[in-house]
């Protein structure tokens, strides 16, 4: 099968009262697609829609040549025939089955149960817990059992809702590696919903940013991280120091926090918000934005300095260990080199939403 043949494509329009999800998404087979976005933006809802647990109001979902859902053609494949490995955000383990049987629940026919159970138990560091019921497990143990259950079912599509959120740092690291291995072994379209940007950087080949039910940006991980299309996306990507700009021209930006020089070449670039990467600025009592140092943390390779600007908005600066380390309470100034400052629009348009087949249907439904 060619990659194109088994990729997952969906055009979806769906509403909860007070919330609308409306997007067009393609998930290729190779590699991992991360889906990130603010809390409540619709990530879990999208996974439920893809799995067939909710029904879109319009649109279609295709997995390779197989149509899973098509509003116009009244096709709606039952969840069990979609063979989706869905990790629920709240795990949803079977309370009456022990760990081993939870994992074995979705095993395809023909797979040797005992071998598979033993394999997954050891892969997810759950050895010794095979006979436990879920209510005698810790939060992170439950999450791993749910992950094992989803992976062990050898799904045609993997949809994981924050699979590593409840485990500690080093286990998380191990699980990421394991996950990469598993996905490399059996490539299927894979969506990884996560709030941990390390997960995205380390595991994902592509990333989609979902904001308010719309896909705002998507592309290869490094590209998206390097060039967020607007300030909202930048915030989701963990950019620090996004300062709102009240007025700007091609040379200066002003806000409640003060003013900074700009160097905009093209007049088309908007600077509703400016981003100051934390390793750009230097402390300099003589020039720049007035600040108060709030807290200093040794981050290993550098010092993280949390300061407050004149309007009390927080700013974070990373200083090399070689630089002198300020003490909390110090009032000084911050010199921000003009070339490090990145201008961003506050909000850009969503990625196009295409409904070629179903616009007629839609029109009929809402007269």
């Amino acid at each position, binding site marked *: 099968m060619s990659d194109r043949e088994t990729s997952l494509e969906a055009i979806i329009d769906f509403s909860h009262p007070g919330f609308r999800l409306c997007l067009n998404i393609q998930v290729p087979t190779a590699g991992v697609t991360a889906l990130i976005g603010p809390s409540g933006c619709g990530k879990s809802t999208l996974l439920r829609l893809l*799995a*067939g*647990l909710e029904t879109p109001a319009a649109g279609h979902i295709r997995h390779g040549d197989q149509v899973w859902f098509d509003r116009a053609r009244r096709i709606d494949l*039952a*969840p*069990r*025939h*979609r*063979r*989706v*490995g*869905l990790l*629920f955000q*709240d795990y*949803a383990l*079977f*309370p*009456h*089955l022990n760990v081993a049987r939870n994992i074995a*629940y*979705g095993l*395809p026919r023909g797979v040797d149960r005992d071998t598979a159970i033993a394999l997954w138990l050891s892969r997810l560091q759950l050895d010794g817990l095979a006979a436990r019921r879920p209510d005698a497990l810790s939060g992170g143990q439950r999450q791993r059992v749910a992950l094992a*259950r989803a992976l062990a*079912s050898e799904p045609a599509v993997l949809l994981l809702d924050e699979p590593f959120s409840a485990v500690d740092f080093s286990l998380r690291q191990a699980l990421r590696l394991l996950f990469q291995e598993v996905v490399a072994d059996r490539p299927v379209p894979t969506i990884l919903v996560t709030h941990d940007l390390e997960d995205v950087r380390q595991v994902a080949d592509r990333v989609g940013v979902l904001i308010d039910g719309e896909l705002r940006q998507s592309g290869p991980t490094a590209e998206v991280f390097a060039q967020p299309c607007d300030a909202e996306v930048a915030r989701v990507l963990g950019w620090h120091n996004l300062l709102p700009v009240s007025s700007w021209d091609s040379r200066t930006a002003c806000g409640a926090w003060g003013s900074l020089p700009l160097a905009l070449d093209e007049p088309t670039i908007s600077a509703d918000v400016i981003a100051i990467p934390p390793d750009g600025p230097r402390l300099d009592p003589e020039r720049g934005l007035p600040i108060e140092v709030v807290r200093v943390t040794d981050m290993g390779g550098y010092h993280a300095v949390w300061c407050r600007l004149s309007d009390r908005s927080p700013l974070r600066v990373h200083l090399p260990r070689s630089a002198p380390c300020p003490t909390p309470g110090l009032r000084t100034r911050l010199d921000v080199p003009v070339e490090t400052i990145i201008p961003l629009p506050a909000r850009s348009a969503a990625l196009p939403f295409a409904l070629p087949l179903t616009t007629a249907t839609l029109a009929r439904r809402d007269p």
Partner: protein
Amino acid sequence: MSLLDCAPTALLLSLQVAGVVLVLFLVAGIALGYALSQPFPLRGLLDALVSLPLVFPPIAIGFFLLMLCGRHGAIGGPLHEWLGWDLVFSFPALVLAAFIAGLPLVVKPIQSAIEGQARELIEVSCTLGKGRWETLFLVVIPVIRRHIAAGLTLGVGRSFGEVGITLMLGGNILGSTETLSLAIYNRVLDGNFDCATRLSVLLGVLSLSLFMLLRRLGRL
């Protein structure tokens, strides 16, 4: 005077009836509870129909069933003419009576449990490739087993104690369709309180053991 003098075969008969309805309740109770927990057309009607026998005096239900299943009845007539089969006065009549009396007590707790607890787990099971039936057996039943046990306790308990329908359909024929509860009923109405008390103790002990058993099952 031994228990056997009071009602020689009633105990055995009651146990047989209880055994058969227990199986019927398991099947019908879970099936109806599962069905009623999911939306489908006319669900409300079925829901009401299941509970309705509860509110009528059993002896009246017995009467109507007798009219329906008697030789002149809409169901009993054809059955008798074509198959030569009479429901009334037979063992199946006792089972039918016990079944009708207890069914709503089994269905209701199961239904509300499925509605309340099993929803998300049913979804998980579907995404893991299991069909309705597999999900029912592998997930729904074990997850709500506590409620199933409660429902069966009520249903079997009621069918033990039921007199009205049993009397009309089964005939209350001494030694043949006289269940344990009918025997108690008969002894009480004969003024034979001594026998009635003995039989009541027997029925009490029997029911308690059944309850314990069902509770154990619900805890597993």
